[in-house]
């Protein structure tokens, strides 16, 4: 379980990792904790799964990649199998089963539009899906993965 100090560390590290020689010492100084304790708390939260990623977050567009949200509607008895096909691609970063129609939602980050279409075509073929709905972003108002 997380305590108050864990929450303070998360708050401090959410988007401002100190770009100094001894970053954990700087964090520790702010919350009256030595750097070894800061590091071991972060290690524990990574181990627990509370922290999913700890490092840089890249802007895929600026790196020349094309991101896209996609959705398919799959009968419940085929969800696991279809999800497994979708998950095989390194370019698929998120894949969620959701209540509603369509029910399987995933994101693709591809090097090019051609590669993206290739991924969709392969998913359709291998998972025997007729239609993939695609929702490419027009405008980003917010992207923060750190509630």
């Amino acid at each position, binding site marked *: 379980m997380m305590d108050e100090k864990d929450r303070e560390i998360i708050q401090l590290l959410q988007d401002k990792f100190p770009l100094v020689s001894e970053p954990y010492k700087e964090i520790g100084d702010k919350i009256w904790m030595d750097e070894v304790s800061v590091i071991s708390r972060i290690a524990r939260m990574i181990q627990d799964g509370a*922290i*999913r990623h700890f490092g840089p*977050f890249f802007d895929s567009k600026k790196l020349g990649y094309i991101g896209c*949200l996609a959705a398919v509607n799959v009968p419940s008895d085929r969800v696991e199998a279809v999800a497994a096909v979708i998950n095989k691609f390194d370019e698929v*970063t998120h*894949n969620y089963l*959701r209540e*509603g129609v369509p029910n399987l939602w995933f994101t693709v980050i591809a090097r090019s539009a051609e590669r993206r279409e290739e991924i969709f075509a392969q998913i359709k073929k291998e998972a025997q899906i007729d239609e993939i709905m695609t929702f490419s972003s027009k405008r980003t108002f917010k*992207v923060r993965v750190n*509630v």
Partner: protein
Amino acid sequence: MDSKTKKVLSELQDGFKLETKPFTRIAKELNITEEEVIDIIKNSLDSGIVRRIGLAVRPEKVGYEENALIAWQVSQDKVEEVGEDLAKMNEISHCYERECPPNWSYNLFTMVHAKTEQDLEQLIEDIKSKHNLSNFKVYRTQKEFKKTSMRYFND
């Protein structure tokens, strides 16, 4: 992107190793100075290649059990105002205007995180009444099949 930048970002893409002096170690490995490593990271933040450096939590592990994708139908003349306002909410982690397929009319996509079912319902009510939105779809998260960070640099 120059080769030094590529090497530094590549070194960091899988996340920080938990060590007291991360940049000193990277500098040694790449045979450059620690100042150079830090400058490269700062420049990548300035140019926007790196959006931020820090951590991402799993909402459901930190008390946010009710997570939903909610897509709203917002008219073109209001989408900027509504999008910017929803982006300010702590409970909303992602907010995009998206291109929609022909048979789909919900153009503003939000990821909403709440501690309880009741909180989620309340949030939806608040957004509905504040922005006068009546058409929307709620897709509650049932199961996570995959959630990773993209690896942009190949070793």
